[in-house]
């Protein structure tokens, strides 16, 4: 492999996806919602197939299907026609309209077109809610798109109202299994939670006798509207700190107190999360969870000898990378490279914050990375394992080291949607997987083939 001294201009084997994809995922986590891309239909088709190959669930994304003429004269008429068709045929309760590079480049004013559409429809039928979000992929990755959509939903739907006991939880892009687990934690704390988005059911649904066009589940629309009256918001993700986020909107508009935390991966970040919940609910962590914490610690001790000092490369979405790095540092694995295709400018600080005091040497932290660059870094770092999504498979294969699959997209293993990352339970499962991957490798490489390890 050839190497160059200056940074690359082009991107080879990207470690990021495009902005509207994140928005579509977020919209999919709302009850009765149909994501809608304003652009030519290729984008919607590509994103659907990508999301489907990970979740193995239906994923409808409507499109305004613009053609050359619309690209020149504007896509307003198509957008309106498309909205009308989605309304009449899918019975959508919410349509989440995200823009694409095409419509951003031609400069369609989507909020205005939607306003006009509403006026034209007024009185005739009680239509669905329409939320719009601007998601040009030439500025930001799928994660920016995800957070922008969550923020747009809150901005455009949440209202003030008589105070409720509910707590808003904005988990970021985590797995359906993670969301189900978060729900369980809230239930055990007896905190009525509003999790936005909640695609635990819509993107990991049950087999059905009769197919429903729009899958059941998702954050109830009514609940979203009441988010302005909640007693607190918990927003996860360290790279979001100090950003204009949905949580911030709820503070500014409705004075809902905001707790910003890191994505709770590993012991310490999870402790911080539980602490906040204890504080909000005024009760100690419920027994099953305290027990899980105890068992996790026990496993940390038991597993330590197998993984201590192993060098890991972590890549993927920034907040996921931060959480995983925090976790690795505490189990004794040495993260040597933390890489993301994202470019928030805050990754290094977040990594420093979660590894402080735990690592003899800080890892190399790089934003805006692609797999070609990661591959180059690997040569010198000689890691023992990779942690990230399916796109790193070829690197792992080339170097003959294990890849622990986490995050999105996972299209070369089964059950990506059920991978648990968060909390004590997620840490336990990640730890088991990492230890076993190391043991497996050791066993395979051994000429003797020991049966006790």
């Amino acid at each position, binding site marked *: 492999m*050839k190497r*160059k001294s200056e940074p*690359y*201009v*082009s*991107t*080879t*084997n*990207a470690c*990021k*996806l*495009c902005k509207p*994809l994140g928005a579509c995922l977020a919209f999919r986590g709302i009850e009765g919602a149909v994501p809608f891309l304003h*652009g*030519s*239909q*290729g984008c919607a*088709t*590509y*994103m*659907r*197939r*990508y999301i*489907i*190959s990970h979740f193995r*669930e*239906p994923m*409808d*994304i*409507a*499109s*305004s*299907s613009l*053609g*050359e*003429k619309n*690209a020149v004269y504007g896509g307003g008429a*198509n957008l309106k*026609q498309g909205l009308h*068709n*989605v309304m*009449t*045929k899918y019975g959508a309760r919410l349509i989440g309209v995200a823009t*694409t*590079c*095409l419509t*951003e*480049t031609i400069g369609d004013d989507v909020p205005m077109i939607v306003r006009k559409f509403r006026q034209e429809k007024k009185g005739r039928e009680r239509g669905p809610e329409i939320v719009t979000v601007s998601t*040009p*992929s*030439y*500025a930001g990755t799928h994660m920016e798109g995800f957070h922008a959509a969550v923020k747009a939903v809150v901005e455009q739907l949440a209202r003030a109202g008589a105070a409720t006991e509910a707590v808003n939880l904005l988990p970021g892009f985590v797995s359906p299994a993670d969301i189900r687990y978060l729900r369980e934690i809230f239930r055990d704390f007896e905190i009525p939670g509003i999790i936005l988005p909640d695609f635990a059911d819509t993107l990991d*649904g049950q*087999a*059905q*006798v*009769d*197919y429903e*066009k729009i899958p059941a589940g998702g954050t109830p629309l009514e609940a979203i509207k009441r988010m302005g009256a909640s007693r607190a918001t918990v927003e996860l993700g360290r790279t979001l700190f100090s950003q204009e986020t949905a949580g911030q909107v709820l503070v500014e508009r409705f004075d809902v107190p905001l707790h910003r935390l890191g994505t709770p991966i590993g012991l310490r970040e999870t402790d911080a999360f539980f602490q906040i919940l204890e504080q909000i609910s005024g009760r100690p962590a419920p027994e099953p969870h305290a027990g899980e914490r105890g068992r996790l610690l026990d496993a940390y001790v038991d597993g330590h000898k197998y993984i201590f000092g192993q060098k890991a490369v972590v890549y993927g979405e920034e907040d996921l990378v931060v959480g995983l790095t925090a976790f690795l540092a505490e189990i004794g694995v040495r993260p040597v490279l933390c890489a993301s295709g994202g470019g928030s400018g805050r990754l290094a600080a977040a990594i420093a914050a979660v590894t402080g005091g735990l690592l003899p040497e800080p890892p190399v932290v790089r934003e805006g990375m692609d797999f070609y660059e990661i591959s180059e870094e690997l040569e010198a770092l000689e890691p023992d394992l990779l942690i990230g999504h399916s796109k790193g498979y*070829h690197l792992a294969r080339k170097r003959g080291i294990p890849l622990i699959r986490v995050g999105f997209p996972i299209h070369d293993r089964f059950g990506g949607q059920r991978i648990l990352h968060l909390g004590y339970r997620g840490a336990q499962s990640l730890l088991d997987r990492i230890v076993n991957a190391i043991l497996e490798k050791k066993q395979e490489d051994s000429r003797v083939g020991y049966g006790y390890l």
Partner: protein
Amino acid sequence: MDTLNPEELSSPVIDINAEEVKQELLEKYPTKVARKRAKQIVVNAIDLEGVVPEIQSNVRTTPGLIGQRGCTYAGCKGVVLGPTRDIVNITHGPIGCGFYSWLTRRNQTKPKGPEDHNFMMYCFSTDMQEEQIVFGGEKKLKQAIQEAYDLFQPKAIGIFATCPVGLIGDDVHAVAREMKEKLGDCNVFGFSCEGYKGVSQSAGHHIANNGVFTHIVGLDDKVREGKYKINMLGEYNIGGDAFEIERLFEDCGITLISTFSGNSSYDNFANSHTADLNLIMCHRSINYVAEMMETKFGIPWIKVNFIGAEATAKSLRKIAAYFEDPELTEKVEEVIAREMPAVEKVREEVKARCRGKVAMLFVGGSRAHHYQELFREIGMETIAAGYEFAHRDDYEGRRVLPGLKVDADSRNIEELHVEPDPGRFRPRLSPDQIARLEQGDLKLSEYQGMMPEMKSGSLVIDDISQFETEKLIEIFRPDIIGAGIKEKYVIQKSGVPLKQLHSYDYSGPYAGFKGAINFYREIDRMVNSKVWKYLKAPWQEHPELAAKYVWE
């Protein structure tokens, strides 16, 4: 077995009333949409001359109707150029378009040796940022080309424009020319395949055909050894299909110069005009290259189909018939005789379990047709079928070509004006030979389309929407549907198995004799699976239990 005889074709499909079904499909649509869809949903009827009703196709998808189609870029970069291993394909645009077309099609390739380039694992993109949208992206594109050249020294670099490129005024062709000149030993060419250009990926196929023909075909006049030299067009080596077909060619002593574009290389393309016959698998995506090669170099083409054991045998026989050489005929018969027993054994076994079951196929631009053969071989009937991006000739046959209207969307795509090459045009057949071949079974430059080979009374649906698919399932509950990954989980949620006919559900090959065996087994497993029986939990099946639950 093979093609149905006229009597069979006119015998009605299982007792459905297709007209009624059509009305049911259209009922819910707003008037304007219904009017348009009515022309794209057709009840098949074959008259005595074999003429079928007109079906509207290759028209824009209605906004908001969730469908199957991709974009022009996908057809150009993903489908036609993607499977060639040694061209560096740079996507000029924001990151998504390139990322989503990165190895997603499962086209396989086998480099000749360690020296042979293979860029299949790579996804190159200019990853456009705001700055390029505002000030133009040509500079970044040039740098990206230089970078790719410095790193990999490829023989060729292709540039693919995505939607924003045309709008901000970047000229990929000018950049290509400049860089080609500058690099000297690397062929650089651009494709204006912005996603919005056509109504589907089909436009991208055409653009890709034009580009490959203009920039690569004919660059290398070296004549290779071999008696029966052919090109294989419209075969993309999904799941290793091309490998199986190559195996058969080799055993028959047929020399494959180039495939467009499964398991192919730049050099193969460059040399492909030296072949003596072009075989077309997927008519939709590649017929332009065949026609242009015929005009410029005099190479005739025939339509073949290697999907289905009988179809494979028939296609091999067609090649033998073309070359009119007893030696080849003998070899071909030998290979067929060698391969068929294994096929028949599995077929009979599977047929016993699958006979009488029904399939629906909504996919691509040729597979909805080709796969009917495979299903028929195991006794399954296709009661409804349609393409995602085909044109009328793929449905009704090329006889409709002269009368086709050119609409605004098709006019966007350049028709190359091709003339016989003064030095290299060489008619492969004498007028006598042509007459003789046509007397026999061999039709040159002819594709009859899908509909003449489907029963009267079956449903033909172009560019089907999700909504219509669900309705059809409700009405028919077919035993299996063949479509793509986007439809897979929707359909399976309804308890009907879905076979992915784009990516083959990550298995294959399904072409040729070995492929047929794979496919029979796979379909048997799917239509006879017991899992669907368990959809209802015991307490849902026994009402006395269910009554206890309030949510019931």
